[in-house]
């Protein structure tokens, strides 16, 4: 593997594809261990795609291959129809990347860092300064004059976001973007991501924090042990999994009068409270309507009847467990 000019294929930028990002049978092996295994993902143009997975599931490795920092053992990454390994310069012109552990030059100020990186994008000094003046207030770093060496992790992450937007990219790739941000920083980040998505840019957010991905992304992919175990919209994944992964339904009943003995072929187990004003039923199907009818027939006044839902975390944890 070598990241040399020789691998660059001369040519023009092909027509914009429907899928802005394509990962085709992507695999990466470190010392015989597969960090990413046959990953195939298609992300349409203008999508905010959340890449979810527990620590060590291969998210960052996949992202590093996507931005051309490591070369895949097999498979390929395409951005806007361009192979990242073959056209690294053209691809990098189109992407903005913020790594998980974002690092800058500690002896330079935020503006100096951004100006330096801007020049690598081919921007002149005047354009760089203009972009700095737009982006630094956006990420809440306007007026901070100290060198990066004096920045907190959160401030570096804010600057990382500004850096990812510096070249006005069509694809923004963010690896654990809120890991070090305070609540205000997280709110700012969400606003920025939603705004750039409105402009039609494609965003990839990799995170192990479910809530964070759920707040901004329009679709997700779940990685576990280097393998993609699910992909789709939030609702689809939650519904599919609740259908396929759970065979039991838990129903809570509260009544004003003591309830009678309940019988049903789908009933697996029932726990009554001592005064019989409450019960928890474990059933094979959703029996809420049957329970309400039965109680009404017996003149028992209903106070509450609800089905126990799985939390988002539980739902997605079960995806990981299924994969494991």
């Amino acid at each position, binding site marked *: 593997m070598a990241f040399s000019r020789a691998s660059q294929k001369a040519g023009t930028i092909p027509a914009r594809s429907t899928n802005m990002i394509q990962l085709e049978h992507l695999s990466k092996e470190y010392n015989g261990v597969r960090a990413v295994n046959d990953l195939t993902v298609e992300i349409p143009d203008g999508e905010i795609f959340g890449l979810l997975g527990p620590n060590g599931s291969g998210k*960052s490795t996949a992202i590093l291959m996507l931005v051309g920092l490591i070369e895949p053992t097999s498979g390929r990454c395409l951005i806007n129809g361009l192979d990242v390994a073959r056209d690294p310069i053209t691809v990098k012109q189109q992407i903005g990347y913020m790594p998980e552990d974002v690092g800058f030059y500690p*002896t330079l100020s935020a503006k100096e860092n951004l100006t330096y990186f801007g020049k690598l994008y081919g921007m002149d000094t005047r354009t760089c300064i203009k972009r700095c003046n737009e982006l630094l207030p956006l990420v809440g770093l306007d007026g901070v004059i100290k060198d990066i060496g004096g920045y907190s992790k959160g401030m570096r992450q804010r600057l990382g976001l500004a850096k990812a937007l510096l070249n006005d990219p069509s694809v923004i790739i963010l690896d654990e973007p809120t890991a070090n941000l305070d609540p205000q920083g997280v709110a700012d980040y969400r606003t920025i991501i939603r705004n750039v998505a409105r402009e039609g840019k494609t965003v990839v957010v990799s995170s192990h924090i479910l809530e964070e991905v759920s707040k901004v992304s329009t679709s997700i992919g779940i990685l576990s042990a280097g393998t993609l175990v699910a992909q789709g919209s939030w609702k689809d994944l939650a519904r599919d999994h609740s259908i396929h992964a759970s065979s039991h339904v838990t129903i809570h009943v509260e009544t004003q009068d003591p309830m009678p003995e309940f019988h049903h072929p789908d009933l697996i187990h029932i726990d009554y409270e001592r005064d019989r004003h409450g019960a928890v039923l474990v059933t094979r199907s959703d029996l809420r309507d049957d329970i309400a009818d039965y109680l009404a027939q017996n003149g028992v006044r209903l106070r509450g009847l609800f089905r126990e839902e799985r939390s988002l975390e539980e739902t997605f944890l079960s995806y990981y467990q299924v994969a494991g």
Partner: protein
Amino acid sequence: MAGNRLFTIAQKEFFDHVKCRKFLLIFGILLVVAIVGMIGGITEYNKNLDSYNQHQSTIASPLSSYMAEKPSILSVFSSVATYLMFVGGILGIAMGFDLVSKEKESKSLKILLSHPVYRDEVINGKALGGIAALAGALFIVLFIALATLLIYGIVPDGNELILITVFATVSFLLIFSYFAIALFMSTAMDESGSALIYTIIIFIVLSVLVPTLGSTTVTELVIGNPPELPRELIDQMQHSANASEGSGITVTFASKGNNGAWDEFGEKMQAYSEKRQMVYSTLALFSPTMNYDAITSAVTQQYSSRATVIGSRASTTTSAAFSVGTSGDVRLEDLLYPIIASMIALLLFPTVFFGLAYMRFMRLDVR
């Protein structure tokens, strides 16, 4: 565009170096030792010049023929070379050992390489920025050295200026050699601390251990002792000494009757010297310090043993006798010819290590 990127990286690296406290500190030390070395060298030069003038005026003296050579202005640079061997090496190491590893540690390498820039532009830019800073530092040192010469009323002629340029060039190559070694270590290691330790180990091996192996004692262990003077010749020398007792001067060792024995001894000595020279030259190929010592010794025309902690110098390496400015029959090419191998070796060192650093950097997995 590619040139712009290379220039942008080189420019940043250059300013990083010149603003760096460690660079300024070592450069300051280099300046001080260069000035001190120059003043010491000038004092010695003036003393030798007085002595030369004195001997020139005493034509009748039997020693006048041995002291007829006018001291060279280049001899002034001799002690500067001694200091440069160490301080220059350390400056090169200090500038190179964390060039890449620091970026790995601060995670800025990941950000940098995510930009539309080729890896060769990054490593070349870093090297160029370093070279420019080193060249700038050396130019200032040289400028001050020349100014010191002029302040003392010593004005070098054309040939001497060329030799001073050669001296400056090889000094730069020495510093660049250690810079390239440090740069390689910086790409090979993940931490700057490890890169520094390994570079220092290599520096010690190349500047102390290898020259020590090339010293007379160690060389004799490898190729054996020099041939002994035949007994008959020793007896003859003793006889000559007794005969001339009282005069205080012994200038004749050979008599017509023993020419064959002398010739045989001379041949043996010649063969031994050649063998020793071969061992030394082979070792010198692996040490920029030895090559630098050989070249600067030839250039500065210093044959006396230099008090140095770096290692003893083989006297035979600098056998290219020349005189600058005194006799017009010795050409500059003749002076430089014997040290061409050392110059090539000195040029090869940074090339090899920079090549290794380049290869390592191109294949680096940035995680």
